[in-house]
């Protein structure tokens, strides 16, 4: 059981090693000639105004993120249900139960839609 998860650790370790090794080889060869103009952020050739990472962005990105959390957690509830659906003895019961759940999920989507959370402009 646990042995089937061991390759994930090996894979992550090996890929990180490969990435760092490539960066090290690049470090041996590449030039390093920084000067202040080169190290400014690119803004069409003008001097950058203000700090970009203070986080001035549309709040709508945040609304989308909240909607994602709600819907993705709900899809996670559907996964165990989907694996059991082939079992004939309980499939009708499971289906009706999930029908209620999916209708609640759809009602949430309709509410978000009606409130304009899905409108981008």
């Amino acid at each position, binding site marked *: 059981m646990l042995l*089937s998860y061991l390759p994930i650790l090996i894979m992550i370790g090996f890929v990180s090693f490969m990435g760092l090794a*490539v960066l090290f080889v*690049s470090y041996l060869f590449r030039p390093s000639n*920084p000067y202040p103009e080169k190290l400014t*952020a690119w803004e069409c050739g003008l001097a950058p105004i203000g700090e*970009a990472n203070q986080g001035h962005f549309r709040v709508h990105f945040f609304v989308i993120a909240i*909607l*994602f959390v709600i*819907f993705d957690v709900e899809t996670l509830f559907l996964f165990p249900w*989907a694996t059991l659906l082939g079992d004939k003895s309980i499939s009708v019961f499971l289906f009706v139960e999930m029908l209620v759940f999916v209708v609640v999920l759809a009602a949430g989507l309709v509410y978000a839609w009606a409130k304009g959370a899905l409108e981008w402009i």
Partner: protein
Amino acid sequence: MPDITTIIAVIIMVVKVVVVTQVIFSLPMPLTWIERKIAGHIHVRLGPMRVGPHGILQPLADTIKLLFKEDITPAKADKFLYKIAPLVAMVPAFAVFVAIPFGGEFIVPFTDKVFTLYISDMNVGILYVLAIGGLSIYGIILGGWASNSKYALLGGLRSSAQMISYEVALSFAAIGVVMMTNSLSLVDMVKSQGDWFWQWNILYLPVGPVWFVIFMIASLAEINRIPFDLPEDEGTLAAGYHTEYSGMRFSFFMLYEYVAMVTVSCLAVVMFFGGWSAPIDFREFEVLTPITSISWIYGLFGIFWFVSKVAVFIYFFMWIRFTLPRYRYDQLMTIGWKILIPISIFNILLTGLMRIWA
């Protein structure tokens, strides 16, 4: 002290991981060449022709060029996050391949040992692929934010908003396939599809093709390719989240994008097109019985079919890239939330009814 079979199993595992990683790591090189050639021929020109015959050594030249490029870190950037972000994007894209089955299993000749052509048959396969594949978003948004550049920040935000929006549709498509196959393991998913092409999930009528279309649209958005490559929209955002990157760190982001393309092609093959199984069941023909009875040939034959099907999908993604224009951002959000998700919810109910009555 673990026993000898466990040690051998771990050694085989390490060898498989190393081989798969090396193949995937070097795969973007031929893919960039193929992509530029396809672009050239679709645009009625030749594509790369100078370096080697038909430009076949072009990716090698590009790699050497990227290796010798200066690694620029903007003065105002968050140094640590800026340097680590490309690795955060790249490593999960590789880790996904632990669960993907490239072929079935066969008996090693002259022994009674079974050799599997996948690294690990996890019982949570598809869930693992979706979860780890989603981690790459962290690399993109960290890279975009840490650059301290407005283009990079907006590119990173757009990218993450787009990817999480379509992640929901992608999960729904995965649920649809799980409902049809009753297993989360990718190996079981392939095995539950038949050996003839009309038994594949794509032809599980009428819901199979709908799930496939939802999956393809969502995965196109997940891998940031045209028509959904808004994060790298050069008309409005310069290069998006990797505007400030150069040299090897830039190429790690490119590597991530190509590996992600291979991943979704593999997933499409495993989930809808029967994985490693051939379109027709060769074992049913009397003439071929001597070949199919030697099961290791049949096992390796599976890899051939798997790679061919994946190649078709990779060509399809490249073909789309040079055929379709780009969507606007509000159109992208409309497609994700107002079209794909309602269709998915309806389709889940339809698939459930089919499973009850079928």
